[in-house]
């Protein structure tokens, strides 16, 4: 089960709209797939990001994976607590393991994302491959 109030990308990021600011993280499924995360690189505050392009990198023992931004805008906060406490990604992916907050101009990008229901269906289909 994934939180119903969030929206999702096909690359397993989640997004939460709060006024004009979108909080972004990775889903429990993504965290589990990564395994032991050893390194996380997040953008600095003030950088601008585009929707569906990388905003950072997460590395596990196995591999390095790009983090794709669900929405475009300007970074207003970067979770510094997370870079030193990577185990939070496994423990609390939808909560304290949030990664960035993006100030966005509108909600067009956000509306394009999958709903919780759609994302779960997507996960099921992925699993069949």
């Amino acid at each position, binding site marked *: 089960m994934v939180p119903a109030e969030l929206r999702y990308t096909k690359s397993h990021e989640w997004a939460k709209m709060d006024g004009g600011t979108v909080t972004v993280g990775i889903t429990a499924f993504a965290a589990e797939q990564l*395994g032991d995360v050893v390194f996380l690189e997040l953008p600095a505050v003030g950088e601008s990001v585009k929707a569906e392009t990388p905003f950072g990198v997460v590395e596990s023992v196995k591999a390095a994976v790009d983090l794709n931004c669900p929405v475009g805008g300007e970074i207003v906060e970067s979770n510094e607590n997370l870079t030193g406490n990577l185990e939070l990604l496994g423990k609390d992916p939808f909560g304290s393991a949030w990664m960035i907050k993006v100030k966005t101009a509108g909600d067009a990008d956000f509306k394009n994302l999958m709903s919780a229901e759609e994302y779960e269906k997507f996960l099921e289909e992925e699993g069949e491959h």
Partner: protein
Amino acid sequence: MSELRRTVLYDRHVAGGGKIVDFAGWEMPLQYAGGIVAEHLATRKRAGLFDVSHMGRFVFTGKGATRFLQHVLTNNAEALDVGQAQYTMIPNPAGGAVDDAYLYRFVEGEYLLVVNAANRQKDRDHFAEHLAGFDNVEMADKSEDVAMISLQGPLAGEILTGVIDSGTLPEPMRNELGAVVINGVEARIARTGYTGEPVCFELFIESKAAPAIWDLLIERGAEPVGLGARDTLRLEAAMPLYGHELGLDPDGRGIPIFSCPLARFAVSLSPLKGDFIGIEALTRQHEAFKRILADDYSLIADLPRRIVPVAVAGRGVARPPAKVFVGKKHVGFVTSGTAVPCWEVEGEGLAGRITDEKAMRSVCLAMLDSDLREGDRLEIEIRGRMTEAVIVPFHLRSEAPPFARAILFDHSLAVHEGPRHRGPAKARDLLEKTLENTIWRQRECINLIPSEQTASPMTRLLSVMDPAFRYAEHKPLKAFYDADVFYYQGTGFIEVVESLLEDELREFLGCEAVETRAVSGQMANAIVFSAMVDYINRADRKVQPRRLGCVMNNHIIRGGHLSSQPMGALRDFVAHDPRTERPAVVNFPVLPENPYKIDVPACRELLGRYRPELIIFGKSVVLHPEPVAEIRAFVDEMGVNTVIMYDMAHVLGLVGPNFQEPFADGADIVTGSTHKTFFGTQRGIVASNYAEADERYHLWEAVQRRTFPGSVSNHHLGTLVGLLMAAYEMNHFKDEYQPKVIANAKALAGALKRCGMDVAGDADVGYTQTHQVIVHVGYSRGPEFARRLEDNNIIVNYQAAPNEEGFTAAGSLRLGVAEMTRFGMAEGDFETVAQFIADVVINDKSVKAEVKSFRGGFTDLGFCFAGDEFDGIMEKLHGLI
């Protein structure tokens, strides 16, 4: 999906929560529920269990098998004795690797070759193609019939011992093989692995029996490990993986085999190996490799790049094929790399404790230009950014079992602080510290190190009188009928002392000649080895002298002293066996029920087969007399032209009817240090029974030459005078002293046993026939207990038993009673000592105050001359210092 293969343990992996992936056509567990980091750490601290049944296993049989393997492999298959394994490469004509492999010779007439899963078909085709040119060799693919399980880590030995029905583990050295029965079926076991763990086993079991054995090992505490951690473990150990460090580089060019540091051990260019695939290219690479090591890059084109361990100093993880730069110059690329975990260690050295805290570090292997060196700073391009890195010698060390130790590139040892004083204050500080130390060791500690002895007051005083500052080089000249000629004046006293000492020692040992100028027991042994080389080359003075063709000795893990080992004083005097490409040393076989005793009947066959030129008895872990008479009878009967040498360092003070009379038993040469059971100052002697009329007297003359001028110029004349007094004491008091030492050792052993301790040796002889007692205190716990005993003023040394991997994994304590016997302790006193030891080891009690007070009752040294008649002269001597 249906084409993927599964090992016989597949169901276990699924049931155990394994995340199954496709690996080289096999459905294998990448990791289990705990994840890669947890599995890596479990292997390093406890024991990891790996299913490696997906690897290819080929068996080669037939009379032509060795010849064939010599042709298609780089290592020297002929060098493998039954019971040994070796790492090897499967070369191509260009000197690259078709694959890397491990060759096992479990039984006569059969070789087992294990290859990478991904290359199984390719390797089989490669071999099949070359088989056409060879007769009498068959290859069989046994990959399906035999399962392969790897058990690695500090607890692996204990876990495995716990499941064995019968048989014993292979000897505790890498690449040793054996067979045991587990759960009713035969398991072949190799001391090999792909993790860098010093305690490592790979098991070969009939496939259908494997799942039950897998379960048994897990029940005993082994933790399943998937392919993910298998890769991080091998990366940390800097072991190559085909496709990364072997095969083709990212540009598609073949990687020369000598690019891999392990090639030095995996490629044999022995003339006896003969022609093999790639020999020309490998010979060129080897030449280039040798020059590169010597900073000569003239042949660098044959070995342009080498694979080295690199630590990432900056943030980030270096993964293949990241580019590596020095300044603007592109110098190579990462071949393997990730972040690996390690346990944090608290404290330094042997006392360092592995904590429950983990750390992550970013490490890689990189293929870099051959002119780069350890310590060179690099930059690795990670996602477009340059990250700092450094070439390191290694990421991990395996020489301190039971743990593999992570080596961090930026770690440095705590600096030892010297005295802060200056000038006279510094001097006073040293005097005070020496006083403190002397009172502690002489009055407050129970000293049980079997190689130590306190000398008598007279011996000590004599050792620091005038001769301590003199020289007295001398040698016999034939021109003067072998009269000794001294080089300096003022040496008349020393000449007399040396001659008297020779007389005393001849009487004590019952022999013809004694050389007293060696200043240590190890030097005494080296003198004999050097003299042997001189002697065997006596007919051929114009060519490079040959070394000793074969030497028989006690293996170091079975009590042999390092001074008689190729790793010690024997190194430069023993030949390399051209077949094995190792020092030509053969070890005495020991009794299965008592590894401290030589198996005499089994020696006979070895003596006949190897016909050693030198036989070295004597050990530093010694509980029994050595079978000198029996071996003398064998060599005489078989006509083996040999020299029997007995290094009696430990038992020199016990020579006589109470222990052993080496020359009466047939020894040719006796060596020894003079300060263990003997009463002396710290020196060494060589003695022989060759009379002047014997042909072998030439060997004795060589001993004298290799002593002076071969080994000493100044032979430490102070302690020589002291040793003469010690010899007087020994000859005068030995009849009383020797039986007491042996009775005390038996009393200590018996009392320790009654206190519940695990005493080694034969109970029928009271566990010991010498001054030594060996107590097992639990695998790898020797250092800890030795330290705790020291904290309680009981001084012993930790000792590896014959089944342990090395001294850091020692599970025993070695105790000796000679020094405390000399301070007056009797059998009843050693029962008290046993109780103290048991209180510390078993009951974890503090007995420091009791030990100090008990030792206070034994501060007068016995078995030495004392009394009013000596007081005046002793005082005068003191007054002259």
